[in-house]
């Protein structure tokens, strides 16, 4: 019906006005187009987030006959003062920050290196690219299973066996996930394996959009390959690298599935790998302490928001995004 009337109305509006005012003849079309998605986001993202804020002021349990009790800021206070809780929460935050601090630079540089590596026109490149893309289709649940086998302790583990072979048996086998010193590092390698190809695709796209004339000019100036890379390539894809660093930061704070699954199977050292996300789920569901988990959620969201704002401000200051 609406399309019918709109069809009749449209030609009566002068062409000039229409082009400047967009679809001004259809005042409700814009909100109408946007409303299903906005409604979905409101119900399934905004509302639960608001509920989390509300719950964080209560002591409340799931499926419990006891009514929720208002406790004000107690849940927040406990997160920082209750000795047991504060230590675990602090450790989880620290783990998240260490993860991000390593993963963001390493993965961004790796994505760039890989993109440069596969950007050259060589015979068989399609096959190499295909191999590098493969982990993209792996769901994290399956990734966790496979890497758990690779990291298995003792000589049975694949990584230990490979290291043993190359060192001629001098390197003794190691419990990669169980040892607090290597657990987080092992998870980092696994995460990079699973997701670096996505960042690589984005960087690759940017590389191919750098004008070739710039390279021609540089080689006329007898610039070396390395000099070309530093002076032409990197500035040319600066915005993309910032974008990649930004999304990698946000994703690295969301770190959840891998750690959760590995800790479920008892194969990973909990203390050194627990993230805020796994703690939220454990506190909320396993310990049935919904209010406490909600307080963690709120603090965590504040941290992510601050990081995103700082990063954007920093990027903008240097003239990007």
């Amino acid at each position, binding site marked *: 019906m609406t399309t019918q009337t709109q069809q009749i109305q*449209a030609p009566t509006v002068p062409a000039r006005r229409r082009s400047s005012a967009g679809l001004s003849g259809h005042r409700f079309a814009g909100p109408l187009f946007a409303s299903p998605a906005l409604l979905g986001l409101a119900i399934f993202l905004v509302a639960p987030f608001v509920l989390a804020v509300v719950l964080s002021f209560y002591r409340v349990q799931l499926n419990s006959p006891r009514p929720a009790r208002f406790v004000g800021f107690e849940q927040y206070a406990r997160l920082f003062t209750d000795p047991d809780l504060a230590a675990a929460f602090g450790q989880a935050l620290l783990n998240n920050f260490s993860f991000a601090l390593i993963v963001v630079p390493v993965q961004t540089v790796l994505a760039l290196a890989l993109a440069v590596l596969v950007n050259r026109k060589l015979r068989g490149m399609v096959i190499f690219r295909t191999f590098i893309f493969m982990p993209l289709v792996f*769901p994290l649940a399956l990734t966790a299973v*496979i890497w758990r*086998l690779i990291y298995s302790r003792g000589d049975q583990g694949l990584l230990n066996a490979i290291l043993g072979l190359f060192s001629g048996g001098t390197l003794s086998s190691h419990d990669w996930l169980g040892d607090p010193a290597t657990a987080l590092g092992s998870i980092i390698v696994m995460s990079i394996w699973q997701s670096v190809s996505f960042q690589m695709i984005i960087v690759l*796209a940017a590389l191919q959009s750098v004008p070739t004339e710039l390279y021609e000019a540089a080689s006329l100036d007898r610039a070396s390959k390395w000099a070309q890379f530093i002076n032409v390539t990197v500035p040319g894809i600066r915005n993309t690298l910032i974008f990649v660093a930004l999304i990698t930061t946000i994703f690295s704070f969301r770190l959840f599935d891998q750690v959760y699954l590995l800790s479920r199977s008892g194969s990973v050292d909990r203390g050194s790998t627990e993230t805020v996300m796994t703690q939220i789920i454990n506190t909320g569901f396993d310990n049935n302490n919904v209010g406490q988990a909600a307080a963690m959620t709120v603090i965590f969201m504040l941290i992510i928001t601050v990081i995103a704002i700082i990063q954007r401000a920093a990027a903008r200051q240097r003239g990007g995004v």
Partner: protein
Amino acid sequence: MKRTHRWQTALHYLILTAVALFFFLPVYYLIVGSFRPSTEVLSGLSGFVPTNLSVENYIGVFDHLSSDATGYFGQFAVVSIIVTTAVVAGSLFVNSMAAYSFARMQWRGKKVLFLLVIVLTIIPFEAVALPLYFMFSGQRDTIYIQAIPFMANAFSIFLFYTFFLDVPGEIEEAARLDGAGPFRTFFQVIVPITKPAFATVAILTFLAQWGSYLWPVLMVSDPTVRPLPLAISIFQNQQPPEWGQVLAFGTMFIVPVLAVFLIFQRWFVASISSSAVKG
């Protein structure tokens, strides 16, 4: 000159091979292991050697999932396919329309709402899983509660938005002069020329949904509405673990997706390249 060039190419191939091996070996390990006896999956380097191959593990998976109590493999697969299809279709529909509205239409409040959508891209689903569970605990063990919350997606809206910004205004102008309203302009003019955007969002949504784990863990206990990823942990928690069966299950989980991905790979890469993800 010629010699150094050839030497460089050789080095390039060497590095490429090493990198490809790093990405491919776990995949190879999964597939080969799925055909070997469970006792030999975890046996150091011999886990790589394709000996004693049999389909025993695959039969084991189907044997294991053969009662109403455990659920059936086919049942899980159907649930996964229904939920994933619904989410991908719903996501393409609602997010593209919202993005089009933000990118190409003028209306009051648009700027504020779009800013809000951008802010929402940083809220991880895990952060709202608990309150969401709280809100919808009455809908546990249904198919639709597995799908509906994931249709509207802030990041997909952002992706579509960047594609739609690049559409030349003359095209809409022409459609309007021909008397098309906003709906016809969008569905008959814009959608066909921005297929790469739809392909990109479809693939990304598919991959995320197909492997979705946390929400089903919370919402599903009834085997008749259980999606595939949950079954991985059933196998993993066996004592002693039947690693061969875990890998066979994993292979069945991944190979169809891998096949589709390999067929559409060029398309996918090309579409990401043409998008404005470049920042």
